[in-house]
């Protein structure tokens, strides 16, 4: 359905439009007390108007920032829009960040107002209150446990709403006038990038940029107000914000907020979203779960699963893309759909998915093919906070596992001689907040945004991203070394949760491995192998043997690729603890911070290259409540077999 959105250049104006055009259609659902509660577009618009009036009554002015801290909650989204009604700027912050990490954005943007989910977030903000003198008022959505807080900065959302309704009743024109004052060039929101180095940067995005990209992509995929999305990733991440805020505001579709982080799988099955987004990490975790459960299944089911998954691997992708496939295979695939793929999609909650995207980081080709082969239209997407997400999207029928597709309408791309990707698009950010130097470095005079990603166009004009420009290295003999490419290959094995490869300027490649506790634990149980915990399991010879087999299979694969054959993994060790964002080893979006890890574990890297067969390590860990402790262990180092490039070529 194409409807005219002319003149609707801000999100509050779009909201008013939906309240008029489809007032009775669902806008937001939230599971509360075991039941899905629905807010229609007109109810949602009412709530937003009331909250906006409440904010104004409290002293919130045009250009003020409103920090939003919490999970996906309808009222937090309402507050986001309410701030925009008044020409304010919502600043979503990661809800799982520790208190200290929240101080910087609040100081940087001199934030005076915050809307938070619950007591946990209130406690964090109160903790940093002394460092953040600008913070004047903290509203909280869930009043539980908040009764005895004497702080004058605190107020419940309900009171804000009440005061807002009263103010709105006194002067109903006020908010309409405020909304009308807004223009597309105003700042719509600010997102702090997770920042692999240094302080995070506040990315300033305008209404025009966000709306333009959200709309272009929605038109490309034919999204309508009949679509349903499950909002389950952090709202502070631009991806979630596009899918659960910008796009519903341009198409009128409904977003659903799960009950809690633990219930996402169940909620997804109940809702049956039609439009789905997941970073590779989530897809990986789902597949790991499926693999584990299949190993526990009876012999007949296992055989059936194996047979049909093999068939799907062969023809599933082609059938999804409408390419010619033999009648016999088609029939068998149909039976497989009845017996395996359909039920599997149902278990994953993806029975109704029409369009699924993955982005955030490169996805392992096997992982990608798995979802497509069982009939889920999973496609890759390329973009970042600075580009309002949509830069490249794979169009239906042109999906390739190793590219991110051609540029979306309106986007111009080019590559520098160093293979860095440059972008010009209507969705580009305005600036980094209060950081003109970083803005100049990222966006040149001609308006090209320097992504820092390395890649090239393939023969069909699709963009292929291989790694970060700064991470792509060369081995001592000059061979191309793309660590992320290797790591992704390793991570496709369910037993390997995380991998970090080293090799730039060295004579060979070595790797740190993080085992997946669920998968390896299950594997050990089945072999009657007792273990006392993660550290113990990670140091078992049997587990080393298991990981070695995985690595050798990757090596065999690499041997077949002439450019990368020399970057086979020679030696590895299994880390005694999981890499964790709280220890700064991963970013908040859970990307490996390779350099930080190389420095933090420098003795381990040295031991790998020095040819030693064990090394002692002591590492600080930070627990979720902010306390720190240390874990020490003796790590073994093992060799993996490598394959001569030529020999494997002959075999293949």
């Amino acid at each position, binding site marked *: 359905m194409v409807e005219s959105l002319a003149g609707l250049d801000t999100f509050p104006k779009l909201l008013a439009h939906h309240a008029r055009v489809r007032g009775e259609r669902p806008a937001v659902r939230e599971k509360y007390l075991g039941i899905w509660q629905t807010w229609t577009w007109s109810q949602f618009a009412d709530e937003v108007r009331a909250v906006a009036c409440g904010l104004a009554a409290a002293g919130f002015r045009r250009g003020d920032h409103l920090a939003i801290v919490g999970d996906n909650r309808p009222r937090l989204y309402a507050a986001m829009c309410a701030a925009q009604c008044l020409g304010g700027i919502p600043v979503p912050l990661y809800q799982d960040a520790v208190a200290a990490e929240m101080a910087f954005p609040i100081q940087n943007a001199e934030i005076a107002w915050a809307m938070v989910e619950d007591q946990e977030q209130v406690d964090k903000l109160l903790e940093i209150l002394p460092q953040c003198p600008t913070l004047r008022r903290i509203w909280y959505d869930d009043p539980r446990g908040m009764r005895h807080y004497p702080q004058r900065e605190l107020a419940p959302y309900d009171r804000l709403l009440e005061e807002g309704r009263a103010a709105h009743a006194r002067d109903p024109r006020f908010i309409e006038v405020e909304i009308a004052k807004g223009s597309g060039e105003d700042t719509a929101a600010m997102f702090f990038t997770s920042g692999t180095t240094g302080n995070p940067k506040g990315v300033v995005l305008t209404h025009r940029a966000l709306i333009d990209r959200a709309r272009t992509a929605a038109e490309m995929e034919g999204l309508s107000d009949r679509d349903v999305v499950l909002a389950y990733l952090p709202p502070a991440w631009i991806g979630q914000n596009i899918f659960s805020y910008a796009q519903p505001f341009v198409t009128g579709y409904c977003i659903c907020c799960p009950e809690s982080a633990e219930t996402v799988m169940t909620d997804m099955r109940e809702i049956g979203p039609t439009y789905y987004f997941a970073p590779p990490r989530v897809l990986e975790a789902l597949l790991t779960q499926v693999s584990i459960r299949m190993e526990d299944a009876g012999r007949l089911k296992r055989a059936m699963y194996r047979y049909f998954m093999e068939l799907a691997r062969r023809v599933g992708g082609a059938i999804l893309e409408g390419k010619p496939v033999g009648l016999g295979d088609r029939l068998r695939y149909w039976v497989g759909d009845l017996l395996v793929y359909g039920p599997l999609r149902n278990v994953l909650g993806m029975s109704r998915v029409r369009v699924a995207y993955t982005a955030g980081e490169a996805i392992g080709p096997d992982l990608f093919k798995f979802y497509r082969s069982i009939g889920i239209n999973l496609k890759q997407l390329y973009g970042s906070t600075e580009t309002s997400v949509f830069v490249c999207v794979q169009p239906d029928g042109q999906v390739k596992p190793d590219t991110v597709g051609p540029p979306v309408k309106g986007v111009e791309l080019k590559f520098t001689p160093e293979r860095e990707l440059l972008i010009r698009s209507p969705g580009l950010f305005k600036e980094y907040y209060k950081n003109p130097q970083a803005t100049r470095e990222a966006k040149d005079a001609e308006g090209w945004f320097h992504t820092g990603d390395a890649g090239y166009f393939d023969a069909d004009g699709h963009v292929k991203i291989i790694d970060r420009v700064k991470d792509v290295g060369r081995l001592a003999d000059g061979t191309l070394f793309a660590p992320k490419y290797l790591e992704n290959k390793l991570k496709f094995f369910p037993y390997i949760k995380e991998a970090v490869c080293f090799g730039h300027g060295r004579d060979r490649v070595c790797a740190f491995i993080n085992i997946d506790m669920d998968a390896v634990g299950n594997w050990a149980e089945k072999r009657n192998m007792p273990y006392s915990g993660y550290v113990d399991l990670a140091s078992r010879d049997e587990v080393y043997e298991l990981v070695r087999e995985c690595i050798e299979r990757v090596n065999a694969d690499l041997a077949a690729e002439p450019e990368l054959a020399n970057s086979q993994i020679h030696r590895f060790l299994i880390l005694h603890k999981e890499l964790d964002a709280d220890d700064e080893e991963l970013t908040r979006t859970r990307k490996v911070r390779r350099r930080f890890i190389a420095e933090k574990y420098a003795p381990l890297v040295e031991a790998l290259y020095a040819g030693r067969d064990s090394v002692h390590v002591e590492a600080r860990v930070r627990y979720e409540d902010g306390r*720190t402790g240390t874990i020490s262990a003796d790590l073994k180092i093992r060799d993996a077999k490598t394959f001569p490039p030529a020999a494997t070529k002959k075999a293949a």
Partner: protein
Amino acid sequence: MRPDVALAAQPQVQAPPPAAEPPAQARPIGEPILVVDHVSLAFGGVRALQDVSFDVREREVRAIIGPNGAGKSSMLNVLNGVYHPQSGTIRLRTGERWLEFHDMNPHEAASLGIARTFQNIALFKGMTVLDNIMTGRNLKMRASFLEQALWLGRAKKEELEHRRAVEEIIDFLEIQHIRKTPVGRLPYGLQKRVELARALAAEPRILLLDEPMAGMNLEEKQDMCRFILDVNDHFGTTIVLIEHDMGVVMDISDRVVVLDYGRKIGDGTPQEIRANQAVIDAYLGVAH
């Protein structure tokens, strides 16, 4: 960080900073609601309780501690009518009226608003979490057996009300994700939480907790402490608990009773108990 990693590293954890609890005086502790007056209980020759007296005030968290075999569980069993003391009385206040009893049964105790959890979890293992908690509402169901079986009249309306009450408890204790899971498949810490949920479903005035934290790891204990304090704060429930972990007792209780060999040897605030010589002797052991 995963719990099992945290567990592995526990001994090296630096001392946690004291949690910023809301000030204790913010919870209005009232007049005594339950009085134990010179209670003695014996099993044949074993004298489990000897002339024990103490009171429990409205909305307070009252701990009963003591070494193994001190008579703690017996005391709890006397309070909810499982054991009947040979001498002494228990008095319970309802509004302004005092009720005195010697041989109440557990069913009566429950209807008077006393609920409890057990040291060894006593849930229906094959039933889901939701159904288990629903059983806690049993006393509040008014519809007849026939009405319930046929889903008639009051039964439907009642069921919906009870389900809502139960869902609120599920939300309160953050166990939404296991709502439909059979209890037998849950880890121990969660089963304990489900048991607490079932006790809460009866909307008790007094909640008796028998070692709510036994066998839990640090993280689970912290969660449980938080839930107990939240229950006390949110519903105004008076809580009587038995616990072995002294750190926990001293952190969350308003007053503590100490039993040893069936006798009361101490009674007072955690600070007073810490300084009580008889208590220190009982725990560290001296020649009797």
